[in-house]
């Protein structure tokens, strides 16, 4: 029985074992690079969205329609309890957190500084919704939404020259444009990882601030929604909007709330795509070279095949099969070398604080990133890379295959 083209192509692949193995090595190495590079980016990206969301407004913020342009405390949403209930019923939404966020002046006996405050319900928040839940470096957390105490960023406490137990007066502008103020003792110090945030953050009890501002018991500036899948925030927002939000409530995604961060991420993702492209071109060049040389070497054989009745199209398909096998085996080989390294790195983040010279977090677009090299690839990007490699292989095989189909039988046979 004469073997089919696919079988013949497979056998042809192993005629020059050394060359094929070298090519497979280069495909495998390309795949390794592409996966590692993308995994680094993806993890970075996921971490940044995550931290950004946990720093402020969640993956989607329910806000007064003008709050994002000018975040004043006069721009509020009502019936926050109802909003939480409706939102948490949405299949995309994991959790909904009510918060009041804004600017304030903080004063101590020694100093007076502009700060950013977040008023939260500490009994509902955890590290998945509010990064600083895990950021306590000294003292203790406020106990409940009506706790009059407060927490300061570690650096802010230094700037305000205040210690645990010390008094801080915070001054706000209320809904009527009146200046109002509250006072609380410092219960704890927190560190965000981002130096600028550490120097300016105050955490207060939600109900305490409502009272100071004269808000209704279920009034706030923000209901922060957390997605079950952080990469489907747009779908989540659209679903919420489609379900119908109350009058005077807008839903903004994290990248609309934080355009700087989203621009930064877009740039990084673009960089990853570019690197992938470069790697694919290198992979394709190596495949092209292998196939092209092997087609030239087999010119006479192709002449014989044409003489016995193979059509030019069949020779074309034979070489396309060869390139397909090369790509497929290359992906498998790449997977075999990539998987162990990937899983090791995914579970053993590399501490790069030695390289950055500080164990402070790296601040990126206002978000503090832990000083660790961490990886984690999005599954669809992994699939994309595999498809890319096989696609690049097939593409690289097209010209050699075309050449095989164009062999002039008489000239080829005369090459004895």
């Amino acid at each position, binding site marked *: *029985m*004469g073997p*089919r083209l696919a079988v013949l192509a497979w056998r042809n692949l192993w005629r020059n074992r050394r060359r094929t193995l070298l090519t497979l090595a280069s495909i495998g190495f390309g795949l390794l690079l592409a996966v590692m590079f993308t995994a680094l980016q993806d993890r970075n990206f996921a971490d940044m969205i995550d931290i950004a969301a946990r720093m402020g407004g969640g993956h989607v913020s329910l806000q007064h329609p003008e709050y994002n342009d000018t975040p004043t405390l006069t721009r509020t949403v009502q019936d926050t309890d109802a909003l939480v209930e409706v939102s948490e019923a949405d299949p995309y939404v994991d959790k909904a957190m009510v918060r009041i966020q804004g600017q304030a002046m903080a004063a101590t006996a020694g100093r007076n500084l502009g700060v950013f405050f977040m008023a939260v319900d500490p009994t509902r928040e955890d590290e998945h919704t509010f990064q600083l839940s895990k950021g306590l470096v000294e003292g203790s957390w406020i106990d409940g939404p009506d706790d009059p105490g407060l927490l300061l960023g570690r650096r802010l406490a230094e700037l305000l020259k205040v210690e645990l137990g010390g008094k801080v007066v915070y001054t706000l502008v209320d809904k009527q444009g009146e200046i109002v103020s509250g006072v609380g003792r410092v219960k704890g110090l927190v560190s965000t990882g981002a130096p600028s945030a550490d120097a300016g953050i105050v955490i207060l009890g939600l109900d305490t601030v409502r009272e100071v501002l004269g808000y209704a018991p279920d009034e706030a500036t923000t209901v922060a929604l957390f997605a079950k899948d952080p990469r489907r925030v747009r779908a989540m927002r659209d679903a919420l909007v489609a379900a119908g939000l109350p009058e005077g409530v807008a839903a903004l995604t994290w990248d609309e709330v934080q355009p700087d961060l989203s621009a930064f991420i877009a740039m990084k993702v673009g960089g990853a795509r570019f690197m992938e492209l470069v790697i694919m071109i290198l992979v394709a060049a190596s495949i092209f070279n292998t196939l092209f040389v092997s087609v030239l070497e087999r010119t006479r*054989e192709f002449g014989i095949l044409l003489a*016995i*009745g193979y059509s030019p199209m069949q020779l074309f398909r034979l070489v396309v099969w060869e390139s397909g096998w090369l790509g497929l085996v290359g992906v498998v080989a790449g997977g075999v070398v990539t998987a162990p390294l990937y899983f090791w790195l995914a579970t053993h983040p590399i501490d790069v604080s030695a390289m950055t010279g500080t164990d402070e977090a790296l601040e990126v677009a206002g978000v503090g990133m832990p000083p660790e090299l961490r990886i984690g690839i999005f599954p669809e990007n992994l699939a994309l890379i595999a498809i890319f490699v096989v696609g690049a292989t097939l593409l690289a095989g097209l010209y050699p295959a075309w050449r095989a189909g164009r062999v002039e*039988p008489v000239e080829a046979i*005369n090459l004895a």
Partner: protein
Amino acid sequence: MTTSPPVLSFEGVTKVFHQGDVEVRALRGLDLVVHPGELTAIVGPSGSGKSTALHLAGALDVPTTGTVRVDGVDLATLTARERAALRRDRIGFVFQSYNLVPVMSAHENAASVLALQGVPEAEQRTRVASLLEELGIGDLADRRPDQLSGGQQQRVAIARAVAARPAVVLGDEPTANVDSATAERLLDLIRSLNERHGTTFLLSTHDERVMKRVRRVVTLVDGKVASDETVGG
């Protein structure tokens, strides 16, 4: 006596090659008719146009002028696809050497034309097995070409060429690369295939021994038929 229509005919065929500025007139008005069941040798000095004639007969190349017909069909009227199908279905080819696909076993090589034709595997297997047996290489069916001697390789090539029962088997100096004992054995096999199955052969050669074993000898000189003799065989 009625003669069946020719399987192959050349009518006033010329072939001119251009090598740079030089014109090489390989065939200068070839007229030749081959009938079914014939065992014919084309002889002639090197450069007389034997290979060129066989390539034209096998639809591997086109004449400059004149007409080549296989089964009465003017090859000039066929598309590239039709020529490929004609080579597969109506023509068998045996070249001087390195005929076989290195990654296929002897059996697979011999069956490859049948496979191209889509003959069911079971039928391929029985037909090729008996053919290899007939050619005395039944026990070598699973060997790859590099595990076969030159003569054995030529037998596999002959098996491949005749397996699909083509109208004509074209052999371009099929015995030129083997020793004379092997050449004689190959010729005996060709002759017995011709006798037992009526396979039509057109072989080029400049080997005296070949001429003694065929039924008809056509001598080419300068791209034309110089003589055409029926010999005893």
